[in-house]
């Protein structure tokens, strides 16, 4: 096992810079997820760690040794691809043992190590089959088996569950988590699915436009997002955001009410007059008696513009400020009429305030905030 240390990592394609001096330290045995929208540079970063993309600037060290010029096979890494990249003409055992075969390892050793990986992944009955004869989930497990057989220091996953249906994805998430616990290898996992990142990772790295937006534990990025971008990206449904201006008594939303906030207690006393984005997660908005224990309650009368019953709960859409509908949750669902007026309770203790211009978090600073737009280290 080994740690991964990325310093000032940049990537240029011709004149275009797609990765801007990324710094990231991943501890030995840690599971780190890189998330972000398409084109944010997460896969490029992973491929550079793998050695499949050259490094334009900066260094990548694995286990203390800089590997910028080291061949992918000699970096001590193994990668699971989105498409699985299984060799179609080889059996499952052939796929899993290929790295050892080309390395000239003895047949007995190959057989033992393949059998060991097959046991971990419950693939023993499938070793003679071809990839075409396997289901999506089985192929995924073979791809992981191929990685495990190499006994790498670092596992790299490039959106490995994207091709699976929702049910299988949930199963495989559990499987990946189990294997990580069992094998204990350092893992870098790229995904655009924030649920995967939240459920699997010890730490989440949120990327945007080739820069690190925030690095933190799942709780950090959910409860203390470093920017409006992170707030909107993490969470499903995403955080409600509305533009407004800070006033002495709170946030005056554009075209709407003033939300009472204790600015000095939030360290925002000096920010009065500043344009801001006021944010609150749907979890923190509910009618009274719907199981939300608000530490700093504030109630409004809201007009229901839409409702999405999800079975155990109903998402309630209502207009707020000028930025469109906000979402709240009814944990004890009942039938709602469009246009019906209901009283919703906000837990303002969990409210977030971001600078309207830069998107950076204001007040209640977290230790991760300094990573915003600096590619800074956690």
């Amino acid at each position, binding site marked *: 096992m080994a740690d991964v240390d990325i310093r000032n990592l940049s990537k240029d394609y011709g004149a275009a810079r797609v990765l801007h001096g990324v710094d990231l330290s991943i501890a030995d045995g840690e599971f780190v997820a890189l998330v972000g929208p398409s084109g944010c540079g997460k896969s490029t970063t992973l491929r550079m760690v793998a050695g499949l993309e050259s490094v334009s600037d900066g260094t990548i060290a694995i286990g203390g040794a800089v590997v910028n010029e080291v061949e992918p096979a000699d970096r001590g890494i193994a990668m699971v691809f989105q498409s699985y990249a299984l060799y179609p*003409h080889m059996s499952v055992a052939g796929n899993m043992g290929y790295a050892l075969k080309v390395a000239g390892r003895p047949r007995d050793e190959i057989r033992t190590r393949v059998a060991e990986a097959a046991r971990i992944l419950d693939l023993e009955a499938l070793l003679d089959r071809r990839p075409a004869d396997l289901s999506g989930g089985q192929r995924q497990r073979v791809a992981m088996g191929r990685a495990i057989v190499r006994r790498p220091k670092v596992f790299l996953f490039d959106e490995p569950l994207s091709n699976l249906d929702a049910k299988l994805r949930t199963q495989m998430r559990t499987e990946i988590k189990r294997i990580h616990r069992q094998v204990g290898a350092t893992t870098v996992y790229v995904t655009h699915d924030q649920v995967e990142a939240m459920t699997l990772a010890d730490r989440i790295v949120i990327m945007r436009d080739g820069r690190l937006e925030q690095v933190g534990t799942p709780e950090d990025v959910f409860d203390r997002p470093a920017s409006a971008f992170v707030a909107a990206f993490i969470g499903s449904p995403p955080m409600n955001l509305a533009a407004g201006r800070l006033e002495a008594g709170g946030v005056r939303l554009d075209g709407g009410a003033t939300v009472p906030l204790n600015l000095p207690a939030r360290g925002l006393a000096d920010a009065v007059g500043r344009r801001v984005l006021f944010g609150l997660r749907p979890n923190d908005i509910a009618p009274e008696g719907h199981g939300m224990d608000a530490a700093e309650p504030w109630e409004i009368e809201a007009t229901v513009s839409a409702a999405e019953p999800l079975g155990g709960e109903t998402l309630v859409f209502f207009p707020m400020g000028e930025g469109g509908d906000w979402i709240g949750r009814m944990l004890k669902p009942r039938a709602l009429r469009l246009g019906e007026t209901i009283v919703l309770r906000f837990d303002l203790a969990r409210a977030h305030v971001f600078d309207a211009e830069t998107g950076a978090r204001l007040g209640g600073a977290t230790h991760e905030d300094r990573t915003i737009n600096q590619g800074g280290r956690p």
Partner: protein
Amino acid sequence: MAATIRRRHGTGFDLVMIAPALALFGLFIVWPAVQALVTSLHAEPTRGGGFVGVANYRDMASDPVFWIAMKNNVLFILCNLVFQVGVGTVFAALIDQGIRRGSTVIRTIIFAPLVIAPVAIGVIWAMLLEPNFGLVRQTFNATGLPFPRQGLLGNPDLAFASIVAVGAWNYIGFMMTIMLAAMQGIPRDLYEAARLDGSSPLQTFWNITLPGVRGALILCALIVVVGSFKTFELVYVLTRGGPGNTTQVLGTYIVEAAFQLFRPNYAAGMSVVVLVVAILFGSLQVWSGRRA
């Protein structure tokens, strides 16, 4: 859509639709083949033209030139498999994996000879290889290298190799294009996975690329086998089977037998042999295509 039309019009409609193609196929392929078979079972016109059964085929078995031609055909197939399919595959792999700049130009240059008719190719190379004033002779002379007095095509030891070389020049581009198209259908991440697995370029070519293009490889091989067995134009224009039958193939020997030796029925018999072999390999091609 197709099912709806069939339901509406029935099998009769299907027959009407394929009738023109069937008529042309029957007229220009099946009828001449039957004619050739019937002709081959009769004596030469100069000997009365009566029914002689398989006598022409018995003659073939004892005709040394027929066996030279047959041997040359087989040799031609083997050489073309190596130099057209083999080299074409290697070129395709180089362009697919190794050459980053100018691959389109290289592909165009290699493919260009294919758009020229084989007869024209033969004429061009006959001029280039002309023993007295040809460009190749002049180049050898200018560089002081030895050149056979009777030229490459007039030398019994070099004529066959020269024809193979010209054939390769003509068809490598075609084989390369088919193989390249197949190689470009192999997902790139298989190569990346192989790189991560520590596979060398040669191991990757052998273990990933070749199995990935197996279908195209079989197709190319069958095209070469059938094409080489039927070969005629190139050999006829370059050497006419000479010198001394050293480059004789069945195609040229059939023409020689029919129009120079005036043995059309014997030539028809050899045509039937070529036809049967071509049908066998053609069936193999269709069968392997269905399997793929």
